[in-house]
């Protein structure tokens, strides 16, 4: 054998082969478990149907009122009824607005006029987050975005609500 033709040494060849075979075996072993582990990320989330929340449209006033209802939730192998709530009112343009009570700071629950010091606002007790009546966060308080709004529909004079979406996407 001539020396100049020998570009790959025996040691290198063995290293490549062993790494290749080892890598192939490791990949074969790990590919399914990893695909299974990341499955929740790749599954498309099923958008919830609209649910009758038990509130007649004629009872909606310009004063936000809290309503509670429950929806059927499928969580993997576990199905259950989970509670939802919303703050619902009629704005100055006579449109129905339903806010999610989940604070846009870190997820606590806000209440209309939840603090006596801040009338006419939504208040979050966790870090004193505040929102104006139209859901816009009060500048200088922790939340950085307006309250989410529920998808909504009126059927037979009753309010139906779906998923909560950031403002502008509902």
């Amino acid at each position, binding site marked *: 054998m001539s020396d100049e033709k020998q570009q790959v040494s025996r040691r290198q060849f063995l290293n490549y082969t062993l790494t290749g075979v080892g890598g192939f075996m490791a990949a074969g*072993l*790990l*590919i*399914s*478990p990893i*695909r*299974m*582990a990341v*499955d929740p990320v*790749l599954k498309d989330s099923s958008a919830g149907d609209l649910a009758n929340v038990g509130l007649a449209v004629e009872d909606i006033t310009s004063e936000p009122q809290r309503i509670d209802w429950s929806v059927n939730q499928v969580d*993997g*192998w*576990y199905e259950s009824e989970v509670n939802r709530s919303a703050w619902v009112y009629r704005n100055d343009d006579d449109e129905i607005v339903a806010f999610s009570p989940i604070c846009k700071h870190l997820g606590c629950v806000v209440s209309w006029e939840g603090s006596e010091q801040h009338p006419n606002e939504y208040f979050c007790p966790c870090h004193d987050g505040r929102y104006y009546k139209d859901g816009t966060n009060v500048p200088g308080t922790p939340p950085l975005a307006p309250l989410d709004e529920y998808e909504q529909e009126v059927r037979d004079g009753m309010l139906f609500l779906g998923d909560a979406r950031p403002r502008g996407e509902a």
Partner: protein
Amino acid sequence: MLQKIYDWIDDRIDITPIWRDIADHEVPEHVNPAHHFSAFVYCFGGLTFFVVVIQILSGMFLTMYYVPDIENAWQSVYYLQTEVAHGQIVRGMHHWGASVVIVMLLLHTLRVFFQGAYKKPRELNWVVGVLIFFVMLGLGFTGYLLPWDNKAYFATQVGLEIAEQVPFIGMQLKTLLAGDATIVGAQTLTRFFAIHVFFLPAALFALLAVHFILIRRQGISGPL
């Protein structure tokens, strides 16, 4: 790049001797199937370990979906097998691997037996091997209950009654395993789960470590 990272670390904490001591040793000619094809019998030990690695990996991933609770265990297994991508494959790896590991272990044991490799000075490692065998049977027995279907339930029922046949302490032994004197239920499942994924794997790791350290100390037996 990798070489640089390696050098940087090696420069500081001198790791080369560590892995050299673990990985860099000669494989005797008489155990190398490239020299004598019949030497493939020496592979069974390594193959057993390989399947154990499969069991541990697939088991860890199954635990992401499995719940050890009588209301949900079967549902969660059904879900991971029918709704989760590749869940069926991962469960299959664990399900079939549990049998293959016993087959490999048996072949390995037969090789050691018929070659007389258990003789002095390797008697201790034979004993460790037998303990590994028992731990493996324990893993098979406890794992079998986990899917919480009829097959699992009655297999465990039978297994517990076998334990009950032990003289004098049979009843106590059965209750200790099942978590209840008469019921095979909620407490049995959580117990078996804990034993299956924590206690026995820990015992298995310890025994495997001893097994391998002894092999390195004493070398592989033979040639015949």
